[in-house]
């Protein structure tokens, strides 16, 4: 199960330093692989990381969909 998004983000940033990268993730269960990946990515200064409140830590679609729409409204 691959969750390491680091090297890919470095490659994306190197290819176009102007690329805007916004990552939204909950931080309430850091044993969860998706949160681990997001928090590692958040360490890059070219990544805009926004912690999410509530139960956005899982991959179930209902709350993820809400988070996607909110993120789009906020950043687009």
């Amino acid at each position, binding site marked *: 199960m*691959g969750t390491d998004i680091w090297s890919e983000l470095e490659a*994306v940033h190197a290819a176009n330093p102007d690329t805007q990268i916004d990552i939204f993730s*909950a931080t309430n269960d850091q044993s969860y*692989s*998706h949160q681990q990946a997001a928090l590692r990515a958040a360490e890059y200064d070219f990544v805009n990381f926004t912690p999410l409140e509530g139960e956005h830590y899982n*991959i179930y679609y209902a709350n993820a*969909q809400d988070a*996607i729409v909110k993120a*789009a409204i906020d950043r687009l």
Partner: protein
Amino acid sequence: MSETQLNRLVYWADRWSVLAYSPRSLEHIDTPDKRVIVHAGWSKSPKRLAALMVRLADAGTFPIGIDTRWAYANQGGVTDRPRIDHFLAAKSFSVGNTNRYAGTVGTEANRYSWRRPTAALAVAEALELETATFVGHSEAGRIGTLAAQKRPKMFNHLLWVNPVGTVHSPSPVINMVESNYQRAKEAWHNSETRGNIVM
């Protein structure tokens, strides 16, 4: 709204159907509204993808959702087009995921496992987008980074919720995505193939 009520872009590319949905008319893609390519994550039904498309359109964007069922149709040894069409028509959800193939990335037999980033690139090409935001959830991190590495000027904004990446070296995957993309472009610019487009 169901996926059947949405506007569709579909064409046959390199033994595959590329299928994308939007609640807005794809013939009017030249709009000041933000164009977003949406990958909703692994195993999301077209019905739910359609619902997300409508919500993003209501939020003022021009969303184009990639149907992920059309990503991995070589699964189970199914390789010919009629059987693929039949196989996919019976599936409500995506028929595979990139994790399953992670151990064999870059091999020819695994070429079609990476149709999702190829589909995002192909749809952007078909719609003649100069720039687009890649929006998505979970596996969208993996797909978006691959697409952005191949076309960094086109996908100049990545916006994710709970993204994941690919733990393996991306090099063989990148090469595979590129060759897939070139095949899809050839198919798109082939007049016979374009005759099958539905918008």
